[in-house]
């Protein structure tokens, strides 16, 4: 790619390259292959991007996945939501090691080459920030589903099970907790229960068939299926095995849930059942009465989604939605529901259950249980109002 091409590329939407658009593509030879250098880009007509929260500094901030624009179940790696506490580090994988020490018989380090040579697993899981939807606790705030629910993304992850490393270091059977530490400027740390790590914890280096993206922890991150996003330590460099949690700033000052009695819960790690309608959703407009396919995502940190229901009358009556993908453990599903809009006002809602029987709460029940100061784990049923003009807005009922 030369400078001229790069200048031209600068005019295209992020992730795309601009090409001339022929009047009739069947009458003109298309562009030759490998003009892209061997790594393709998205179409110049696709313009959806992550948007960022307006924080004082963009090195501790977050970006939202454009959920309403997602086609299918996976999130394209370039649109995976982000949360950074010390910016995105640039790490040379040939100098990166994972240290595993503490309550182990043989403290070990693993180079990236070591890790890639070990038996691997490949599994599809969502990651959701436990701060997803936090703006909605005290009332309607965000205008569209990218802002209300966009701290959620789904990928195919590839890496080594924690249990594989546990064998290699000869884990002390008394060990109960593991500190995971990142190599970013925040040197991010979280304490993870041993039960979780031994059940399905993964040390992943692959995302959607290729190496992790830099924003997702290149070259290595922790993947804890269904756990709140902050625990999936990115740029993972160290696992310190212990018999107690470390009570890091992230898990005390930040990711703890304040109840209305002034006391807080620590280590609320599993993400609760949740679903959201992405079409139609806030800031959209239905052009005219008629048939519409309501679609959206449902997910749960506790296993598989069992079922999704839809209401078009603000929760008075419910009917089952179709599940359009096969439920997998700790993975989003797509749902849909055929709806005839007669042109009158409607309030659209979805709710889900998971295979453990846990259900997504009404806003009333959630607040009765948790108050409005929890910050994290807001999983109330989302309501979208459709007015007689077809305008769709965020409401709470």
């Amino acid at each position, binding site marked *: 790619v030369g400078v001229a091409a790069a200048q031209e590329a600068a005019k295209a939407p992020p992730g795309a390259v601009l090409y001339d658009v022929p009047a009739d593509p069947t009458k003109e030879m298309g562009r030759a292959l490998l003009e892209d250098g061997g790594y393709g880009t998205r179409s110049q007509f696709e313009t959806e991007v992550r948007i960022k929260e307006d924080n004082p500094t963009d090195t501790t901030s977050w970006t939202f996945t454009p959920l309403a624009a997602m086609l299918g179940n996976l999130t394209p790696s370039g649109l995976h939501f982000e949360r950074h506490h010390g910016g995105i580090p640039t790490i040379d994988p040939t100098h990166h090691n994972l240290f595993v020490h503490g309550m182990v018989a043989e403290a070990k380090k693993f180079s990236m080459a070591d890790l890639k040579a070990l038996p691997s697993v490949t599994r599809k899981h969502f990651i959701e920030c436990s701060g997803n939807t936090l703006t909605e606790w005290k009332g309607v705030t965000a205008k569209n589903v990218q802002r209300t629910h966009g701290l959620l993304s789904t990928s195919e992850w590839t890496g080594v099970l924690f249990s*594989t490393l546990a064998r290699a270091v000869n884990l002390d059977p008394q060990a109960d907790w593991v500190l995971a530490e990142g190599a970013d400027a925040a040197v991010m740390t979280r304490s993870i229960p041993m039960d979780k790590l031994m059940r399905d914890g993964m040390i992943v280096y692959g995302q959607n068939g290729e190496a992790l993206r830099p924003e997702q922890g290149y070259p290595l991150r922790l993947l804890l299926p269904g756990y709140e996003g902050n625990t999936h330590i990115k740029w993972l460099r160290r696992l310190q095995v212990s018999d107690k949690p470390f009570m890091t700033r992230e898990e005390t000052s930040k990711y703890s849930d304040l109840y209305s009695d002034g006391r807080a819960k620590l280590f609320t790690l599993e993400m609760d059942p949740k679903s959201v309608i992405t079409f139609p959703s806030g800031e959209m407009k239905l052009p005219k009465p008629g048939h519409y396919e309501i679609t959206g995502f449902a997910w749960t940190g506790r296993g598989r989604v069992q079922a999704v229901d839809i209401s078009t009358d603000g929760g008075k009556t419910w009917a089952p939605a179709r599940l359009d993908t096969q439920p997998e453990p700790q993975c989003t599903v797509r749902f849909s529901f055929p709806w005839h809009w007669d042109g009158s006002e409607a309030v659209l809602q979805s709710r889900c259950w998971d295979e453990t029987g846990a259900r997504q709460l009404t806003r009333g029940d959630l607040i009765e249980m948790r108050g409005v100061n929890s910050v994290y784990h807001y999983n109330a049923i989302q309501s979208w109002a459709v007015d007689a003009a077809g305008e769709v807005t965020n409401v709470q009922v």
Partner: protein
Amino acid sequence: EGAESWGSPIGPDDLKGMAAYAPGGGDLPAGSGTVAQGRDLYGERCAHCHGEELEGIPETGGAKLVGGRGSLASDKPVKTVESYWPHAETLFDYVKRAMPFDDPGSLTDDEVYAISAFILNRGGILPEDAALDAGALAQVKMPNADGFYPGDTYDLRLSWGRADN
């Protein structure tokens, strides 16, 4: 060759500069610092983001570090080191690893003890003439130490079971 051959032993210097300081203090490093030392250091390294009075400066992202006691059950809870943090070791651990935000990881252990002493003093937790080292830090009792539920709970009435309609 089974799992025992995977990876390689950790060398003596491999973990240099990597640590985490859990409650109990057993892991805390040598060194010490006083409130007075901390006041100066704080003024140089922290105040431009967290404010001279530790009141926070929203435009920098620097949080308010003191105040808020008694607010947690109110409509407007104010969470600070003083009002919310259960363990003083966490303050040492966090400042050492991640602060100052504009030059992370640049403080010595002595400096972190001093700055921690200063913050805890301004939070009304340590007296003006206090000094902190590993032993003293582990003794600090934070105002909100008992402000947390002992563990996670299941609210079966609301969260479990299929709805009626």
